[in-house]
């Protein structure tokens, strides 16, 4: 069995002792030739020729797949909802909150819309009259009765600025596939699913008078399909900083949001993917980003109500590249570097890995020897833990 050591990574490496089939002079000559060849090829970026020259087989599918990175991230999302109720009357009584396009005529009765956050529907007809005024019933224990804070409130939002805003929390799960090219660039596609817990929205004005708006849903989900482009703008040893832009479509949960009256905008996401390379194929990622998006809700007879919903995300995850070469199939092959073997099944020369994908493939001395768990924590200072 012959092992050829050909590192095709940053520095060509040849183990002279392994080419014992040549005589010394020939060995030296051959070695120099290979070094020169590999150096030249590396500089020229034409490593493929080495494989052609020595007829080393590599799977073309894996070679292509290796150019793609698969990324999975999850984390925390904080969505800032803000409603703009311009163009509406806002009415609140002790039982509810209602809006009505301010093109309508309001008499002594008011029948407005409820649930304008996600599913506007016509509310009950209510008298436009303060429920604590004549001729409505009196209050028991009237002085400083907390019920008084539920007083009727009526306003035209064209003349009185009224809106609601609030923060909801979410957990996103994102899967992304991108193609790396020209060293620093990447383009790709992704899908993200977010579980969001919807909180009440506080009034932007008249906080002591207008009650918080309570959406009629406790949670919802958002799914995003997007295209992405990125540029690696900084690299520090094994740390990469990549500016990423996502552009795509977002869809709210159809059970919670009435899709027939909701227009969801395209969404943009700007973020910085901070990646630490643990090996050529494996990275861990921390990614802060911001989603910029909004949706509009149509109310019969009224202008569309715009709901801003930018989201701040902080996600962590992993990114892998599928290796272009397999692990050595030979059980007693303990060589640590990438090397060439004769495939026992096909008889072809193939390049194989000596390391799992989570470790550097051509380690320097001691590089992949992690400290064992038994030497950590309480045993940190012991010479012989066990």
């Amino acid at each position, binding site marked *: 069995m012959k092992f050829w050591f050909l590192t095709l990574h940053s520095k060509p490496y040849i183990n002279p002792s392994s080419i014992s089939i040549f005589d010394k002079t020939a060995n030296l000559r051959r070695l120099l030739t290979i070094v020169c060849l590999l150096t030249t090829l590396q500089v020229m970026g034409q490593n493929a020729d080495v494989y052609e020259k020595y007829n080393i087989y590599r799977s073309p599918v894996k070679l292509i797949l290796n150019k793609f990175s698969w990324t999975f991230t999850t984390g925390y999302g904080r969505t800032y909802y803000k409603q703009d109720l311009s163009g509406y009357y806002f009415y609140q009584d002790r039982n509810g909150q209602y809006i009505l396009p301010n093109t309508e005529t309001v*008499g*002594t*009765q008011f029948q407005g819309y409820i649930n304008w956050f996600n599913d506007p529907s016509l509310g009950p*007809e209510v*008298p436009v*009259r*303060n429920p*604590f*005024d*004549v*001729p*409505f*019933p*009196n*209050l028991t*224990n*009237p*002085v*400083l*009765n907390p019920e*008084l*804070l539920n*007083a009727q409130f009526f306003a035209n939002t064209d003349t009185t600025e009224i809106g609601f805003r609030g923060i909801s929390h979410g957990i996103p799960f994102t899967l992304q596939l991108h193609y790396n090219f020209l060293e620093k660039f990447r383009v790709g596609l992704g899908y993200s699913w977010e579980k969001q817990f919807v909180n009440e929205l506080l009034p932007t004005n008249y906080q*002591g008078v207008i009650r918080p708006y309570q959406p009629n849903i406790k949670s919802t989900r958002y799914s995003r399909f997007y295209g992405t482009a990125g540029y690696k703008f900084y690299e520090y040893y094994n740390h990469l900083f990549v500016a990423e832009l996502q552009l795509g479509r977002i869809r709210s949960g159809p059970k919670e949001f009435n899709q027939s009256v909701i227009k969801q905008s395209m969404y943009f996401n700007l973020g910085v993917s901070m990646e630490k390379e643990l090996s050529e194929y494996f990275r861990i990622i921390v990614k802060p980003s911001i989603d910029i998006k909004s949706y509009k809700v149509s109310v019969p007879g009224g202008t569309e109500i715009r709901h801003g919903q930018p989201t701040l995300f902080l996600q962590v995850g992993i990114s892998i590249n599928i290796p272009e070469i397999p692990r050595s199939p030979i059980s007693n092959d303990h060589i640590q570097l990438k090397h060439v073997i004769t495939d026992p099944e096909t008889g072809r020369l193939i390049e194989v890995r000596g390391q799992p994908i989570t470790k550097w493939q051509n380690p320097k001395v001691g590089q992949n020897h992690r400290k064992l768990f038994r030497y950590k924590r309480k045993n940190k200072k012991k010479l012989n833990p066990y």
Partner: protein
Amino acid sequence: MKQIIHLFVLVILLSGCGSDDSDVSSLDKDTIEQYLSDNNLAFSTTSEGAYQYEIIGNPTGNNSGDVFSIYYTLSDLETGVVIDSYLVGDGDPIKLKRSASAIFPQGLDYGLAGIREGETYGIILTQSLGYRDFNTNTVPLGTLLHFEVEVITRETEANIASDEDTQINSYITTNNLNNTTLNPIDAVVALANGIYYKRTGAGNGTTMAVGDSITIDYSGTLLDNTSFDNLSGFKYKFGSGNVIDGLDVGVKEMEQGEDAKLFIPSAQAYSGSVRVIPEATIDELVTQFVVPDYVARVKPYEVLVFDVTLQTIH
């Protein structure tokens, strides 16, 4: 040592987080007690902290019934400036109901405890029992209120209801409402719970059922013909507790298109309402959600007269 310093700083910080109210209250008490001491007034305090001192006693006077009829003078304890008063020359004593959270400032409610008919008491309130942090033009923030209250009568609401019934009948008699020639079309009918109903214009025979949506026009006056409210096209669901009981009971007798006059005793309307002293602060207290809006229209134990037109029944 460092831990001790940290603990010390923590204690200082926490002590700084204490409520300022207790400091203010303590200062108020000092001021009030100094005043009482300077004037040689023997005082007592209620469990809520209102100061009482006797001016004119009447140990045999009636001390039952929560509805008080009083005259009063209200002044600023520290300056002696009279803020408001209602005395014998101003008319019949005003009524207010104790122990029902129907008096503002609330300290007056507490301070009236135990005072008998015929007695006059001084009642002094700390800020927390007075206007608290509610800012009004008449009572500036931080004023220590000093009442001198003369209790004329103490009654029960049953007595009040009886009096009101007498007032209504007197009004009916005085205004010849049972004379259908002078005041068509029907004589006055007594309904349940002291409500009186007089049809003044015929309807078309259509009557209502509970849950019907009805539209009425009304004008509301008191027995002295003072208007307190009027409204056209007021729509509500009949029999659903959406309006005062007396209005529902009276309207029930009406037909679509009919006009009627309803006499509603306070028990079927706003009962003890809220007695605010001084009255000039009511509107400001309404806007600060201290008292309901109806307090600005209807004072305690007012009989309401509604002239109603029943427009539609749906």
